[in-house]
């Protein structure tokens, strides 16, 4: 294909796309750890000893509510600072190295 006259170099956008996919995986791992850790870390205690935040049991508040807010903030930060704007069409100006 004409896109590869830069022989051996390949599509310059792919390394960026791959990096962003890895960031996604890291985010998912962190999310799972947070969600799981708080739910079962705090939630496994006997019900009588639960503490409450805003009316919710603490495990639920940290895992599902605070966790959700933290993830939103992380996604915003990641998209703003780590993700790059790329042209998606190959035949536009997208093939310059």
């Amino acid at each position, binding site marked *: 294909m004409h896109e590869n006259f830069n022989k051996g170099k390949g599509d310059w956008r792919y390394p960026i796309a791959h990096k962003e996919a890895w960031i996604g995986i890291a985010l998912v791992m962190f999310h799972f750890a947070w969600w799981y850790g708080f739910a079962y870390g705090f939630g*496994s205690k006997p019900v009588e000893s639960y503490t409450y935040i*805003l009316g*919710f049991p603490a495990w639920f508040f940290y895992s599902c509510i605070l966790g959700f807010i933290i993830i939103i903030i992380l996604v915003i930060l990641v998209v703003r600072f780590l993700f790059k704007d790329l042209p998606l069409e190959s035949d536009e100006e997208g093939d310059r190295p």
Partner: protein
Amino acid sequence: MNFQVIIPLLIFLIIIFLIGVFASKKLANSSSFVQDYFLGGRELGGLLLAMTMVATYGSASSFIGGPGIAYQTGLGWVLLAMIQVVTGYFVLTILGKKFAIMARKMKAITLIDFLKERYQSKWVVLLSASSIILFLFSAMAAQWIGGARLIESITGLSYTSALFIFAASVLVYVIIGGFRAVAITDGMQGIIMVVGTVVILAGTIIAGGGIPAIMSDLMAENPNLITPFGADGSLTPLYVSSFWILVGVGVVGLPQVAVRAMSYKNSKAMHAALIIGTIVVGFIMLGMHLAGVFGRAVLPGLDTPDTVMPLLALHVLPGWLAGIVLAAPMAAIMSTVDSLLLIVSSSIVKDVYLNYIRPDAPEKNIKRISIGVTAVVGVLVFFMAIDPPAFLITLNLFAFGGLEAAFIWPVVLGLYWKGGNAMGALASIFVGVLTYIGITVYYPDAFGMHSVVMPVMLSLLSYVLGSIVGRNRKRQEHQEIINKYLL
């Protein structure tokens, strides 16, 4: 009949119908009917992309079945539902730019177009088209049943007439409007879902006397309701985590979701969709499932938990507001059904008919056939849903699992692993689907996990092994694919 409730719903249906008409006007001027009908000409902006993904994914189970189980199980089920926040950003980061760039190089419109170009194998195409048709058919039937039940419970019509109203309204706008109509109505339905969630959650909290009061009500009834382990203690951490694969990360393999990851306009739209999608998915999942749990304090002792949502709306809200809120599950169901309908008919028309039966069909015929097939599929589902099986959510999740087991590796490794080839994809789809059906039927909850986990692992293994075994076949072609798309 309660007209205060029915009128907002009717207005909702009429608006949806008008969107279909509007989109069909645009279709009439289209230069490439197939591209436009099945993909809307790749022009989704960020908000619309996020909303259409959320609306497609958020289905009857998020608004009817899910809150129903939450009502029975307690906060443990909300914990499980919150896994789905992952889908808000995961699908778009994993498929992300790579998928969009490759799909454009391939001029792919459907997931199967992608698989066809990537693996250059007739059997991969036919096998994936048949899995899509088989599984999405059952997913669709589940959604139609949900839609009909909802109309039935609101209007008091018989199930069959409710099903007929539902089917007719969906079919009309999908058939005349295609993907663009589906995306625009999805956008609107997404917004309705968000508003509906806020209103019903607020109404329920007020009716229950505030969150602390609701919590102590629940604790008085059964302390397990506020633990992560579920009312009868059956939600083990392992089982809940395995749902993480089914409704979280595995969603990457769903064709109806993946097709949206190739329909966006530019990377700005994708970035916006990542953020909006995460917020909206999380918000709806948290709100609807919490409302289900809280509903137990407001309306204790329901016989059929699936009815908790409509009953709650009618109980805690004034009639007209209940009508608007009940448009939300309606919207969720319709927006899922419409995309499934389009995926199934695109598999038949584009992937089978245009690829193998009549590749040289003239534009005019394609148009007639696309519309005709969409209509026929819709009518067939209607007949399947007339005599519905009892468990709505089971059927829906069954289809999800099957598609994930079939497609997750051929898609993801097809994007990122140069060694992946047709042999691997075939093995993966074959093993994924067969083990999934086998395990679901004969050995559910294998090792305490949801039945999707083992098939997903086995299909990964098959993909890798198959690719290694098939490495020396068609070396030349494989190198060409790599040079063209993967370098």
